[in-house]
């Protein structure tokens, strides 16, 4: 009897998952949680999106296990993080449109406050590079107000927390070389081709 009892009491119930989802969506919508996240499929693999009250805070290629990645985010930003597809809908929609070629600008709000002033200046300059155009590390350093800071600008770009949306893939090396890309060079090629630039 005790066995049967224990088994029945411990059997997973479908209602729990639905209740958890309702809770997470509401906590995200009403900002009881500091951060909401969702994973979405894309032509470049699974993407992890994280948003807070100021807008999107993270957009990463999910190359590591989700739990490990979330643990880092919880540690660095806030442990109050819940999964909510609904909360990330505005950015998911824009990314879907971008990948299908019907969107050239991202408009949903981004969290610029999380960045250091220098990184913010570099990434804002990067965000100003039009769809289908490119700049150089020197170019964004100049635009960010630090004409001699191309190496620092490269580092700031390498640590871009908002991949694709802040288009660091549009920044190339001055000599015409490709430069690097945190998500891997193949992805940089893919994005530039998607935007109509033939691979250099």
């Amino acid at each position: 009897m005790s066995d049967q009892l224990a088994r029945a009491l411990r059997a997973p119930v479908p209602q729990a998952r639905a209740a958890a989802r309702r809770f997470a969506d509401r906590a995200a919508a009403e900002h009881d949680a500091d951060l909401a996240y969702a994973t979405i499929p894309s032509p470049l693999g699974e993407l992890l999106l994280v948003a807070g009250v100021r807008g999107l805070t993270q957009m990463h290629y999910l190359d590591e296990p989700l739990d490990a990645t979330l643990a880092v985010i919880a540690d660095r930003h806030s442990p109050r993080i819940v999964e909510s597809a609904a909360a990330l809908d505005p950015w998911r929609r824009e990314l879907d449109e971008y990948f299908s070629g019907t969107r050239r600008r991202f408009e949903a709000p981004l969290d610029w406050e999380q960045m250091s002033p220098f990184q913010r200046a570099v990434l804002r300059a990067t965000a100003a590079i039009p769809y289908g155009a490119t700049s150089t590390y020197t170019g964004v350093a100049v635009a960010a107000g630090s004409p001699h800071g191309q190496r620092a600008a490269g580092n700031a770009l390498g640590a871009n927390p908002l991949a694709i949306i802040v288009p660091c893939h549009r920044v190339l090396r001055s000599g015409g070389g490709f430069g690097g890309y945190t998500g891997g060079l193949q992805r940089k090629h893919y994005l530039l081709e998607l935007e109509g630039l033939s691979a250099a």
Partner: protein
Amino acid sequence: MLLEHHSDAVWRALRAMVGVQAAEDCFQETFLAALRAYPRLRPDSSPRAWLMTIAHNKAIDHLRRAARDQVAEVDDADVDPAPRDETIWQAVAALPPHQRAAVALRFIGDLSHREIAAAIGCSEAASRRSLHDGLATLRRTL
């Protein structure tokens, strides 16, 4: 992440303590309270025992409100998908509150008697007795 790892056990414990109908509300209240208090969780304490304690408090709140409003104490409705298990849940629902809580926290929450005692606010001996009496009643009923 607490939510993903513990939502199932919390839901079932609440279901045992307050019934299917009220479990949803208590579940939402439990995780909201947990979320708000989360940074105060000490690293050495067990998240599950902590969540179960909150869940138990929310269940007590609900039962008090229900008693005041003269609603049936545990409203285990007819929406159970598995009829074989239903008798068990009904039998658990029919237990006195302390025994019900002890059974739920022990078998669903996997809490130790020390943790159950802390959650319910009784001694370890009382927790053992509640569990023993609850199981004895269930054994007779089932």
